């Protein structure tokens, strides 16, 4: 399946994969509580690559964790595949910024973990693991422990671990935030390749405007406190994108002005010592 087919599927399929309607999330109790999400309405369709963009503290992780089922909304409707989210599940594979690989398992065992739980037969499991090791260039590391891998390699393992379960949705919280620029770009390219070849829906949190425009078929910008949707933009540039092109930079500039306005409000709070983190 390539990206064009996915776009066609989107048009025929009416039901969104993720649907948030009037979602609120409040940490603590008002009035002292933090309103992390306020009135979020968002529909994500199969095959989309949605980037959640915004300054630190605007609620990106909160929204992602709500979809993942880690931390449910205080109020509002949140559905995945038409069913309300009540708990975490392997249909929403999560990739964390801190990799969160199990350090006591080898690369291979990490990737197979979800399949073990699912009870996949050993032949099938070996096939899937081999395929993923191959796809992510991890073959020669299969018997290594995570401590022996670079950050980029670790994140590849984390992606493979999630892909092993073939989830319709992949949730990624600043997955490349801790990587150097070159590793970051190569992982971005790899992720795009995977997205376009296996037809996943990806929700990707970032605070890099460049990264959002490079990756997203759609970019959702959140406001800072309370977290609401400020702008929902479809990025029409064809893949692979050229980050030096005029169009790319025009979009980037557009989004930057929106994000920076939010960032200034964040920075003001920070000076006043209002941020909790």
């Amino acid at each position, binding site marked *: 399946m390539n990206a064009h087919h996915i776009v066609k599927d989107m048009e025929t399929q009416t039901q969104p994969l993720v649907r948030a309607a009037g979602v609120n999330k409040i940490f603590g109790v008002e009035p002292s509580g933090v309103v992390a999400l306020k009135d979020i309405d968002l529909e994500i369709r199969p095959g989309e690559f949605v980037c959640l963009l915004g300054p630190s503290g605007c609620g990106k992780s909160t929204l992602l964790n709500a979809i993942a089922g880690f931390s449910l909304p205080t109020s509002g409707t949140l559905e995945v595949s038409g069913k309300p989210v009540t708990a975490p599940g392997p249909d929403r594979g*999560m990739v*964390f910024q801190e990799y969160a690989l199990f350090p006591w398992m080898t690369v291979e065992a990490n990737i197979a973990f979800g399949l*073990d739980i699912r009870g996949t037969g050993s032949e099938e499991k070996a096939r899937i693991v081999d395929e993923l090791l191959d796809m992510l260039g991890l073959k020669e590391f299969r018997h290594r422990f995570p401590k022996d891998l670079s950050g980029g390699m670790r994140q590849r393992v984390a992606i493979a671990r999630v892909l092993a379960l073939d989830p319709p949705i992949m949730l990624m919280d600043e997955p490349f935030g801790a990587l150097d620029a070159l590793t970051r770009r190569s992982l971005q390219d790899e992720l795009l390749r995977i997205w376009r070849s296996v037809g996943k829906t990806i929700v990707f949190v970032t605070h890099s405007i460049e990264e959002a425009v490079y990756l997203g078929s759609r970019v959702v910008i959140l406001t800072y406190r309370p977290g609401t949707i400020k702008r929902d933009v479809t990025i029409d540039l064809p893949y692979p994108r050229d980050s030096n092109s005029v169009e790319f930079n025009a979009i980037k500039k557009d989004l930057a002005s929106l994000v920076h306005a939010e960032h200034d409000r964040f920075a003001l709070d920070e000076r006043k010592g209002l941020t909790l983190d």
Partner: protein
Amino acid sequence: MTRTLFRNLAVPVVLLVVWQLLSQSGFIKPVILPSPVAILERLWTYLLPAQTYAESAGFADWMWSSELLSDLVASMRRVILGFAVGAGLALPLGLLMGTDRRFEAYLNPVVQFLRPIPPIAYIPLAILWFGLGDPPAIFLISIGAFFPVLINTITGVRNVDSIYVRAATNLGADRMTMFRRVILPAATPYVLTGMRIGIGTAFIVVIVAEMIAVNSGLGYRILEAREYMWSDKVIAGMIAIGLLGLAIDVGVNRVNNHLLRWHRGIES
């Protein structure tokens, strides 16, 4: 290279020579402090099999007639048994107390109350309860091993990084899988630290227990030697105890390093 070797050996060699000269000159009585050479000789006879080698009896019989070897084995056996009982009880209890706050709240006061009582203080009670022989010894050793393993296991489970739990939950882990494949391995560094301390304590306790409750093993042997005023054998026994302790520590370290080969900071 030669410099460090010199620095490391200079003081011990000087001490031994001075010691030997003092003993030889009759300045110190052998009963108070026998000469190093006498101690080495005694260690050697302690190690030598008592029986003369006979084809008919076989090699094993001959070897085990060595007093030192059979003492080593007797002490080791008690350490292992006592440790197995103590750690075997502490590990599941610690895992439970670490995971279940309520369970922990019920048991914590008792644990905190009993923990500071040194295992040796249980000696009278151990003898009242179990009489003499192996049972009170094993009881005492298991108490020595119990608390370090318990406390470290609880801490280990408490300190499991929640990111692993979240990742495993996300991948569909049920409670059993979470416990077996996430909590337990994540807590191993602490558990193993507890076991190492526990073995160390067990080793201290075994020597004391053997002095009191049984008539075999290294602890018994050096007390027995004192009764005959064989100070050379007392010190030979102490050396054997030291070497066994060192061997245990090296062995435990090896096992730890293997089990923690995935851990940061430990290079395999």
